[in-house]
Structure formats: structure tokens, C-alpha cells
């Protein structure tokens, strides 16, 4: 399977929007390698023909009428926002 290195680690951090302290990079990488090494054990297992288990239950999907609720009261959720305006979440600009 895959070989992990600093370049891949940096790319993953970029994707996950996480900073890795350069001083901790080596430790991070070493821990990562030891965990990934064990993942190889799974590769030796024959899983041909096995149907993957994709969730916690084998419940069937339940569908409902596609009706809608009109509700302009954002309720107390707004109070938990870092910034809000007129009952809406205030976000920083996406395009400068």
C-alpha cells in the first residue's frame, strides 16, 4: 500500500484545513507510519465477494412525502453563532 511522507502529510493537512507545527512533523509522521503499517494486515485478508458494511444498521431507507415547512425562526441556534446579523449567521467574505 501507500508510503507516507512529509509531502503527503502536508497535502492532507491542507485538505483538512489543519496546520501541523513543523517541530511536531517528525513525531506525527512516525506515529502515522506505525499505524499505517498495521493496516497492511487487512490487505492480506481475502475479502472477495464480501458485501461491504456501509453503516451501523441494516435498516432499509424510509421515505416520506416531499413536503416542506416554512419557518423563519432560527431559534436559539443563532445564539451559538460566533457572529450573527438579523438572525442569520455572519460569515467572512469568500471572495475579496
Amino acid at each position, binding site marked *: 500500500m501507500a508510503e507516507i511522507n512529509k509531502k503527503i502529510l502536508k497535502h492532507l493537512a491542507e485538505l483538512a484545513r*489543519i496546520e501541523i507545527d513543523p517541530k511536531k512533523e517528525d513525531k506525527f509522521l512516525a506515529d502515522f507510519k506505525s499505524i499505517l503499517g498495521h493496516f497492511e494486515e487487512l490487505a492480506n485478508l481475502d475479502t472477495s465477494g464480501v458485501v461491504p458494511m456501509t453503516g451501523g444498521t441494516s435498516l432499509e431507507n424510509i421515505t416520506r412525502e416531499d413536503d416542506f415547512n416554512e419557518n423563519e425562526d432560527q431559534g436559539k441556534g443563532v445564539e451559538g453563532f460566533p457572529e450573527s446579523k438579523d438572525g442569520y449567521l455572519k460569515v467572512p467574505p469568500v471572495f475579496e
Partner: protein
Amino acid sequence: MDIKGLTIKKIHHDLVKKEYSAKELAKEYFDFIKKEDEKIGAFLSLSEEMAMSQAGEVDKNIAGGKGLGVLGGVPMAIKDNILIEGLKCTAASKLLRDYKASYNATVINKLKASGAVFLGKTNMDEFAMGSSTENSAFKITHNPHDLERVPGGSSGGSAAAVASEMAVAALGSDTGGSIRQPAAFCGTVGLKPTYGAVSRYGVMAMASSLDQIGPFTKTVEDAAILFKELSGQDIMDSTSAPVSYGDELLNPKIEDIKKLTVGIPEEYFVDGLDKNVANKINEVVKDLEKLGIKTKKISLPHTKYALFCYYIIMPAEVSSNLSRFDGIRYGTREKADNLIELYKKNRDFGFGPESKRRILLGTFVLSSGYYDAYYGRAQKVRALIKQDFDEAFKKVDVILTPVTPTTAFKIGEKTDDPLAMYLSDIFTIPVNLAGVPAISIPVKNNTGLPIGFQLIGKHFREADILGIGQLYEKM
């Protein structure tokens, strides 16, 4: 008033007999917590005002002849990843240090309806990721049986609160062992219900296909009482199942319990299992045989793949679930020059090392080019693990195993070695992957640090494991 040894059952009895009031009881608990928790560190916050008003309500209902709920006046501690409206809910993360919940989790509404009194929110590993509660951004929790040792995790605060008598019962969440492992380390009972038995609405999701909420109690009987109150389908959680549990949970028929067959899987008695723990588990097997329960050696052949199967599936779900914590929607926002920097700054400041490690690991196993090799394969291995249990449950009704390979380890012992930390959940993880229920029960006649044994049941057959547990408890 002596609060030592109080149970849900006893409190109900005492309140009916007017031995004390719910308010007196709550006050007694807060007085004790304020002294005791200085050395244990189980609570992140106390909710005295809310508790006294809940207790007052209970007293008013008793006085007015309106009756007493099953949990009426029962002082409980709640893990800090479960939302209680108006109270801080931090998941022990710096990122949510100022976040206040805007609604109640379904389990909280159920407990309130039953009259429970909320003492406060308990410490945990950040976002429920860890096995020792050392990943909390705020404090260390100490094991009440030995203050130099960890209480286990991630629900370590809840386990320690019940074990040190600072709460009669508590709620935790269990994704790979986070209720059962700390229960075993602290000497309490801890139940991980069947996936879908209890609504997850209002618990901060860690790995959605594995998470379940469950009780910590002092007795198996109390676990049965509390589980019955928590369970049930919920329109707010599409994975909650349409089941209802009957009276057999609370009043198991001894004749029926004695007819159950208990399987002992050879794969759980391996190198790394402490000798003393193994001996104690064997004593439990003999005790059950004395009760007339049949035991049988069985095999769960894919057990050894469970740990690393879990460490692919869980981080994958974590990386997705924790993406919402980006400084935009919850708690406090650290400012930055542009949007990407704002995300990074908030997540860097907010997440501890273990959270970062799992987010990165999850991002890796889901990333283009690696998905099939890791995540896709792990889902197939998960199916094989579940199949092991399905096959075993054709031959036996319940499976008995150790909960942990060792007793509670020292604070700081495993913090630098994530792999060693992960291994402490090796016996609890397969249960979450398969979605079956399991309970951790303290072994009797044990003079050293607490040891737990695990009873694993068939899907939605909590009655079997709680039944055997209650029988063992009364021996």
C-alpha cells in the same frame, strides 16, 4: 444523610417514603462534589441552579400527589458531548470552550421527563477521542481507586463521578469502548446499547455508524432501569430502530436466564491479556456455571482485524463529522486575513493532537487513490467481523470476554504512544463494528484495581446480558 451506595432504586423508594426530599438530596451531592472533585476532576462544569429547580419540581409533584417518575430526583452526571439546552457543551475541546447548547439531546428530554436531576457535565477525551481522558483540553481526571492512574476514556469523567459517589448514575457515549473501558477501570457498570436502540440526536457525532449513548451505574439493575428510560425510536435520528423493550429488562425471569448459553471466544484470551485479569475472568465463568448457565468455547476468527479496521472507519467518519468545527458556526471565532487562514487558525488553535491525528488519518484513508485500499476494504472487513458474531449467535445466546487487557494504567504512561493507547480498546471495538450490545460489569471478590468482564448480546437482546448480569450481581 449518607449518600454512599445510593442507587436509583433506593432513591425512588426513599423519596416515596419521604425519607428526604429531592432538594435535600441534590444539595447533599453538591456539597460532596465541591470537596471530592478537587482531587478527582470528574466534572467540567456544575449546573446547580438547574439541578435545584429540577429537584424542586420533583418535590412539588410528590407533595401534590402527581407521582414520581422512575428517575425522579436521581442525581446524574452527563458527558460533555451531550447537549443540555442553556448549558455549556464543550466536548472538552478548546474550540467549543464558550459554546452553549441551544437545544436538548433526545436522551436529555427523556431523562427530564422521568424526573432526573442534572448535577453537571463531565470531563472526557476531546470529542470522545481517547482511552484515558488525558486528551481533554481542560483537565486530567483521576481514577478514584488510585489517583495516579487514569479513569479510562473517553467517558472517564462520567465513570469517575459514579465510582467516587459524586453521582448516582451518568451518561456516556461509546464509539469503540468509551463507556465499557472506563467502567472497567473505575469499577462501575457500563452499558453500550445495540446500535439504534438509543437516539443519538444531540450527541456531538464522532463516528456516526459506531456511536451510541449509554448509562454508567453502580448496579446492573440500575443500568436496566436507566437503559429502559433512554431507549426508543426517535424521529430526529433516522438510524434509531423501531423497537420497544418490555418488562423483562427490569424483572428478568431466573428460569429463562439459566437456560441461556454463554460463549467464550478463544481469540480474546491472547498474549497481552494480563494474567490476573484472565484469572478473574475465568472465575466469573465458573460463577456463571455455578448458577446453572451453560458455557461453551467459541471462535470469532476475524477478531484480530477489528482494531485496524476500526482505525480506518472511525477516523474516516471523524474527519467528516469534525469538518463542521471551523470557526464559522460554533463558539468563538479567531479572526484571520482570509477565509482559508480563518479555518486553519481556528482548527489549529481548537483541536488537540489526537483530534488532528485522527482527522488527518481519516482524510488519508478517504483520499483519492487510497479509498479502495483502505476505507473500501475496511468496510468489507467490518462485514466479516459482524458475520463472526452472527455465526456465533447461532450457537450461543451471550458472549463473555474481558473488557480490557489490563487494569487502569498510570497517568502519562501511554500519552506519547498512540498505538499503545489504541490497544487498550482491543476487546471492546469489535462490538461497535458489529453493532451489538455489550455491558461491562465489575468482577466480584477482587481486592486490587477494578477489573471488568464483558457480556455481549445479540442485536436488541439487552435483556439477556442485563439478565445474566443481575443474576451474577445477586449471587
